[in-house]
């Protein structure tokens, strides 16, 4: 267990933590009064398979 390996494992663990935390925080922050504009893109959302899109969740609701 060299020193560099430990630093690297900690760094990757930190990255995973940053990812999860930023994802959760992003889901929690509300969209600033732009909810109207989302409806226009509803037809596009059907073709796009990106599941991480916050707009898609809104449309499913």
């Amino acid at each position, binding site marked *: 267990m060299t020193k560099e390996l430990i630093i690297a494992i900690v760094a990757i663990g930190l990255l*995973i933590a940053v*990812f*999860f935390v930023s*994802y*959760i925080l992003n*889901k929690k922050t509300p969209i600033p009064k732009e909810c109207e504009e989302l409806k226009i893109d509803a037809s596009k959302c059907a*073709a796009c*398979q*990106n*599941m*991480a899109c916050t707009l898609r969740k809104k449309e499913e609701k």
Partner: protein
Amino acid sequence: MENKPRKLYELTKGIIKENPLFVLLLGTCPSLATTTSLEGAIGMGFLFAFVLIGSNVVISLLRKIIPSQIKIPCYIVIIATFVTIVKMLSEAFLPELYSTLGVFISLIVVNCIVLGRAEAFASKNSVGASLLDGIGMGIGYTLALVIMAFVREVLGTGGLTFGEIFTFLPYVSFTPLEKFAMSIFTMPAGAFLVLGVILAILAYHANKKANLERVKAKIEKEKLAKLASEAKEA
């Protein structure tokens, strides 16, 4: 007994009806880049199927444990792990394939098909169904890649060449049409061209079928209207 047709449907829907490349139009980036040779396409399809099946099964196994808040990040990490495994295995056992496909093996992790099937199917269905879905989609994508690569290689180099990438096969180069080869098909432009023409042919057949059904529905409606008016007169 009704489980069996259902399972067969899960397996075969990915091959023709919901073919990920030609019908759902997903995963177009690797399809254009790796289809310059037939062997490359088979290799890419095989690696892709490996990642898809593996991630489908694991995500389906863990679907009750992962909290739904952080579904997507977890899926991304699981898929990235499988892609790294596939990358290392291919670098070790199929080095020519690894150097031909290059960065597109790593790009399987952002391939819309894998994440899409994980979210839409594997997170809601049992392990068996997810396994079949993964196999079906994998076969479908490989078939699509093989069709494109076949057209490109035959028209671009005049024939097929085996044994360059899969070095365990004997080197066989069968190019009967070499005099008529159009090298545009091995260029990037040819990739766009072949995919566009294939999609146009599929759209033509879909339109024809839709037209036929529309004509049939109209005939049915006229028949019913005639019967109704005859009944009124009587």
